[in-house]
């Protein structure tokens, strides 16, 4: 169905950004804040509207009226399917939350923050809606450049270092993406993704196409922070200002996974070497990411860095749903993606509350100092429980769908990575909540290994304005009725899989619940958090024994994350080699 709605989602915010930049100096006080919030609200509403309309068939827009001539696509199209539209709505909601949270945060820089954020939002929307491969790359780049600038915005030493690592690794990813697009275009002569899929089906057995996939996948996995491409993320998300981290962890990382899902199901599904490699390598990379991310998350005391590692862990879970290559898997990924984005944005906002109210972000240093901000305590614990798989809301529904998808696997125990990752990250958040807000979990030698840099954010902001978005995000993530979300996700997933390219194994209706993943991860989380918080009450021999066994593992993992750019690049190269090996053997 031809529609002029999809381009609005990308063009609207850019127009607002340009206007703000031109008029910024003359606008009084809080007007830019209000304009930015209204723009983000409009994008969220537009996403929801498109999602409803796209239920009856995708919304298509050919720019400049350059529709296909004689079956040959010559123009660039925006195509809004249900999944893409829901992503746009999610992005809008995250930005509304971030702008409300950042009320007064960026007074000194005037409108520049709003302009960068609006461009960032437009790029994410364009990335979700475009149907042209090169256009996808352009939005990917716009997204990256805006993100680089937003990370370094504070111009403090550690923010600059994190931003440099982030920029170098992600630029390398962009280059790989461009090279992959070049290879695909050289072989298939198309850039429209649907046309590419048709051509790829005809060109079966061409070895260049899996090669192109390898480069494209590496680029998207760098953005999606999958082991071993993930090293940049922990630093970048930890040093970025809190309102920016909210959008990074909730939205930008998910874009990598969403992009991979989009490419897999529109272009590469007919290429057997690629689907086999996804199954044989990427699925296990996702599982490893989930478990390793969870362990690293548990080893942190810097709350934002801990949340960043938890994002890595959950991205691994999202990736598994894509690599399972089924409608249920994709539906699970989409549901989990939305739920995780909302919860993680709320948690980063709470970390921002800590930095603004308590003037620090070190979990052990802040022990017991958060007692008076009790609403934050409730929200922090609720966020931890949702991460840990409390059986309500979107994340739980996503995990159930993933479980159903893994049921058709030959090695279905791979799904156990989901409760382990979710349990460990939930445990870390619950432990932080117990320490900071209740004063539990006394640690000997509190000063040892504390982050040395003074980390505080602008303090004179109203607490209700910081906590309102948190409450809304958490409510959205937990109160959506499960069966509705499930139905919508299955619809979205089957619309995202191009009919005629691959037989889409859709299992509509009730999904059989096989493993109680939610309860498994929740009990793991409570057990681990309880252990950390109550360890000093236990007999010393037990506590010290476990400590002696686990400490070298955590220290070794931490040592791999040296933060040196060269090391991160070597790991990316290793990941690239692993992917190509998988493609070669498949």
């Amino acid at each position, binding site marked *: 169905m031809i529609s002029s709605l999809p381009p609005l989602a990308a063009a609207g915010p850019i127009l607002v950004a340009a206007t703000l930049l031109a008029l910024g100096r003359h606008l009084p006080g809080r007007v830019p804040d209000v304009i930015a919030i209204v723009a983000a609200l409009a994008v969220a509403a537009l996403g929801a509207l498109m999602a409803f309309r796209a239920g009856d068939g995708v919304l298509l827009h050919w720019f400049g009226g350059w529709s296909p001539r004689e079956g040959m696509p010559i123009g660039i199209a925006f195509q809004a399917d249900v999944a893409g539209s829901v992503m746009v709505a999610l992005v809008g909601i995250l930005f509304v939350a971030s702008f409300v949270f950042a009320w007064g945060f960026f007074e000194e820089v005037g409108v520049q923050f709003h302009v960068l954020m609006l461009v960032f939002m437009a790029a994410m929307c364009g990335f979700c809606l475009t149907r042209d491969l090169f256009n996808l790359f352009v939005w990917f780049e716009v997204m990256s450049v805006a993100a680089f600038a937003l990370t370094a915005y504070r111009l403090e030493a550690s923010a600059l270092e994190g931003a440099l690592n982030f920029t170098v690794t992600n630029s390398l990813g962009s280059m790989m993406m461009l*090279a992959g697009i070049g290879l695909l275009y050289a072989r298939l002569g198309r850039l429209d993704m649907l046309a590419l899929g048709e051509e790829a089906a005809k060109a079966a057995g061409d070895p260049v196409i899996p090669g192109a996939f390898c480069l494209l996948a590496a680029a998207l996995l760098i953005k999606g922070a999958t082991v071993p491409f993930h090293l940049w993320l922990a*630093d970048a998300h930890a040093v970025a200002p809190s309102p920016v981290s909210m959008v990074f962890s909730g939205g930008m990382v998910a874009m990598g996974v969403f992009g991979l899902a989009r490419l897999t199901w529109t272009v590469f599904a007919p290429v057997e070497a690629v689907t086999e490699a996804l199954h044989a390598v990427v699925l296990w990379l996702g599982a490893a990411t989930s478990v390793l991310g969870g362990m690293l998350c548990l080893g942190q005391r810097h709350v934002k860095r801990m949340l960043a590692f938890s994002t890595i862990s959950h991205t691994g879970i999202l990736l598994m749903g894509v690599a399972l290559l089924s409608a249920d898997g994709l539906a699970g990924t989409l549901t989990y993606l939305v739920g995780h984005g909302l919860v993680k944005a709320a948690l980063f906002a709470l970390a921002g509350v800590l930095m603004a109210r308590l003037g620090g972000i070190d979990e052990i240093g802040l022990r017991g100092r958060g007692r008076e901000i009790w609403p934050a305590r409730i929200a922090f614990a609720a966020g931890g429980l949702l991460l840990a798989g409390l059986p309500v809301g979107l994340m739980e529904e996503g995990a159930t769908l993933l479980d159903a998808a893994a049921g058709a696997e030959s090695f279905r125990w791979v799904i156990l990575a989901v409760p382990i990752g979710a349990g460990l990250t939930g445990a870390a958040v619950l432990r932080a909540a117990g320490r900071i807000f209740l004063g539990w979990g006394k640690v000997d030698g509190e000063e040892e290994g504390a982050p040395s840099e003074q980390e505080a954010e602008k303090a004179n902001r109203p607490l209700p304005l910081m906590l309102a978005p948190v409450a809304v995000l958490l409510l959205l993530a937990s109160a959506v009725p499960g069966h509705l979300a499930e139905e919508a996700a299955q619809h979205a997933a089957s619309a995202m899989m191009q009919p005629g390219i691959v037989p889409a194994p859709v299992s509509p209706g009730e999904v059989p619940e096989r493993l109680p993943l939610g309860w498994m991860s929740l009990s793991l989380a409570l057990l681990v958090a309880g252990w950390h918080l109550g360890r000093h009450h236990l007999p010393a021999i037990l506590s010290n024994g476990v400590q002696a066994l686990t400490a070298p593992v955590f220290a070794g993992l931490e040592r791999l994350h*040296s933060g040196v750019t060269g090391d991160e690049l070597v790991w990316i190269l290793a990941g690239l080699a692993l992917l190509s090996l998988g493609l070669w053997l498949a």
Partner: protein
Amino acid sequence: MSALPWSVALWLFAIGFYGMITSRHYVHLIGCLSVMQSGTYVLLLSAGFRWGAGPPVFADHPPGTPAVDPVVQALVLTDIVVGAAVTALLLALALQLHKRRGTLDPEELRPMRR
């Protein structure tokens, strides 16, 4: 099509990557990044090249004359613009960092102080 442009692209990619991994100065590292980027340009341009074809400008010769693929040239042009933006941003970051730390050696600059 000859294998030469492909090997050149691969060589630029590899030598740039090697330089970035072993770099001890951020400005050098950013230079290596640009070298790698040139590799992708060579790859793209060679993908659209045809022997005996002219430039894709039809102002002075009739439509239908053989021309090289203009799409890849547009892609390269777009990416040169993006690449310039990223390089400028990187250099600005490096400059600010040098002001604060007095060094640009990646080994000595570690975010989060580890």
